């Protein structure tokens, strides 16, 4: 038996291809949306991997340092190092900011780290790591910074000495790694005018400026210009110890919040991007409905366009299931053409998205299955119309 659907598609191939292109672009957008969601999840996991920590110690009763602000004294790590099961503890700061580069602003996450400890960039693709205590940075290539370029962060200028790749925040902003002291200053230090004002207020306060207590005022003023806070302490657990148990001990004895990898992943993936994920899911549902409506309309009009041929086919003895299969195959064929075009364009335009778009083969397979299901459903109205065609209409009168 010849394929009636295949012959009809070949006969009207221009109509099919153009409809397929339109549908394909829609499917391409759908796949890209799924890719954007996957990219967000991957960004979150990249952030966790790049931290190279087993436990994140943050301010009590916060979901810090990524989902909520967190402030921890920068000497807290000493106490953590003395706890059983803690192999290493390193201070880190995170600050999302805009850095001016020529005529444009680059949005980055500035990460303060201690070289050789958790939190440093795990690998470089060019240049070297931060070796000096101040004014050197390693930047993700997506910042657009070049080796040797000088960038300004707050009041200081920094030299880009190394480049890394796929180091991004949970929002997809590329990271810039700088020495911890510089990062603390950039994050917590007030500007000069604010410091002058604060000093004046302190000097004018009789409770703090006591003539009978020498050194008190100087100590207070010094504390106002130095920063003793970090956003989190990254803890590595010694081998043979359970991260959950170590985190529990930190929570109990140090009055700090401690999250294991699994808990932090849950915060980043489930909580931080939950709204975005729901937004994308809603958009995907709408796109699926729009795609179904388009396919349904096209197949329906094409079926209406051959009512006479269908009547003849029925009159000469073509079975209903043959006619239904023809329309179903045409709809699936249209979906297949659309999917191939959609997958191709989604792959081609993915690198041009400002945020990371991760197209997983599994998602493509699921997308193909969903497309086929949508097209099968979309063909039902046309099949119903075709089966109701009266063979008697082929005979005049």
């Amino acid at each position, binding site marked *: *038996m*010849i394929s*009636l659907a295949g*012959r*009809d598609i*070949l*006969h*009207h191939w221009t109509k099919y291809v153009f409809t397929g292109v339109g549908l394909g672009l829609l499917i391409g957008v759908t796949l890209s949306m799924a890719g954007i969601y996957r990219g967000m999840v991957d960004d979150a996991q990249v952030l966790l991997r790049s931290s190279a920590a087993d436990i994140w110690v943050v301010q009590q009763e916060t979901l810090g340092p990524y989902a909520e602000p967190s402030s921890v004294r920068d000497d807290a790590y000493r106490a953590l190092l003395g706890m059983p099961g803690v192999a290493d503890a390193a201070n880190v700061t995170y600050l999302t900011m805009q850095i001016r580069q020529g005529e444009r602003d680059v949005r980055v996450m500035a990460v303060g780290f201690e070289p050789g400890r958790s939190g440093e960039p795990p690998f470089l693709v060019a240049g070297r790591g931060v070796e000096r205590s101040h004014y050197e940075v390693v930047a993700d290539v997506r910042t657009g910074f070049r080796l040797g370029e000088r960038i300004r962060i707050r009041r200081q200028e920094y030299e880009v000495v190394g480049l890394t790749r796929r180091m991004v925040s949970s929002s997809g902003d590329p990271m810039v790694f700088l020495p911890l002291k510089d990062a603390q200053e950039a994050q917590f230090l007030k500007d000069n005018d604010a410091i002058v004002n604060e000093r004046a207020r302190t000097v004018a306060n009789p409770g703090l400026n006591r003539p009978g207590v020498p050194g008190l005022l100087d100590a207070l003023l010094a504390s106002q210009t130095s920063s003793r806070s970090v956003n989190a302490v990254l803890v590595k657990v010694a081998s043979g110890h359970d991260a959950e148990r170590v985190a529990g001990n930190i929570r109990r004895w140090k009055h700090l919040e401690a999250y294991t990898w699994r808990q932090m992943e849950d915060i980043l993936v489930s909580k931080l991007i939950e709204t975005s994920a729901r937004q994308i899911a809603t958009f995907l549902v709408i796109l699926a409905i729009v795609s179904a409506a388009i396919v349904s309309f096209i197949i329906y009009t094409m079926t209406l366009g051959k009512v*006479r*041929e269908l009547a*003849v*086919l*029925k*009159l*000469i*003895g*073509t*079975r209903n299931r*043959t006619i239904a299969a023809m329309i179903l195959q045409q709809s699936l064929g249209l979906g297949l053409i659309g999917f191939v075009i959609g997958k191709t364009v989604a792959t081609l335009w993915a690198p041009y998205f400002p945020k990371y778009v991760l197209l997983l083969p599994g998602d493509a397979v699921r997308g193909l299955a969903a497309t086929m299901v949508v097209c099968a459903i979309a063909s039902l109205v046309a099949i119903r119309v075709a089966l109701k065609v009266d*063979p*008697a209409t*082929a*005979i*005049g*009168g």
Partner: protein
Amino acid sequence: MDAPAIEVRGLGKRYGEGDAAVDALKGVDMTIAPGEVVGLIGPSGSGKSTLLKCLGAVIEPTKGFMALGGVPVFDGGWKIRDLRGLRRDSIGFVFQAPYLIPFLDVTDNIALLPMLAGKPNREARRMAVELLEALDVGHRAKASPAELSGGEQQRVAIARALVNRPPIVLADEPTAPLDSERALNVVRILNRMAEQYRTAIIVVTHDEKIIPTFRRIYRIRDGRTYEEAGEGRAA
């Protein structure tokens, strides 16, 4: 002696019910032998198309008896359950317009019927090409229907009607869109095919050019048929 290809007695068809009921056929009697070509003529609304649809097992008569190829098909009710199969295997149709399937080439338009009947593709195409040769359109076997002239399209439609060697062919004004020469040519072909395949052919027509070619005519008026002798002129 062969059984009649078509035997119809007291066939009636009523549309609607109660006061709105209309008797399109009131009692049709008709007997056509294998290989015979008869004309069915009558004014518009006389019941020609209704009779054709009943004979084609497309609509169900209300009363009477009908046998096709010696097999009772209707006797107060359908005697055969697979009407689709009956139409496919036992009845050929030629329409006013050829109604060829535009997305199939000429050969496959014809071969589709034997394929639907379960014949292998190769065998079905061989049967189609053989018939196309017999109808002098073998050279258009690979053409698309849109590439054919009106006369060629009608010959292909006749080939489609005959390919399964049905005992009867119902032709609904097959010469309407054709000029005199082509119309008479179609009649010649129908006569030749009827003789060659022993197929009974009923030609519904208004066409004054071809009416004189029939040896026998059924005139239909107010839902009843009246048999009369035709001139039987050579087409």
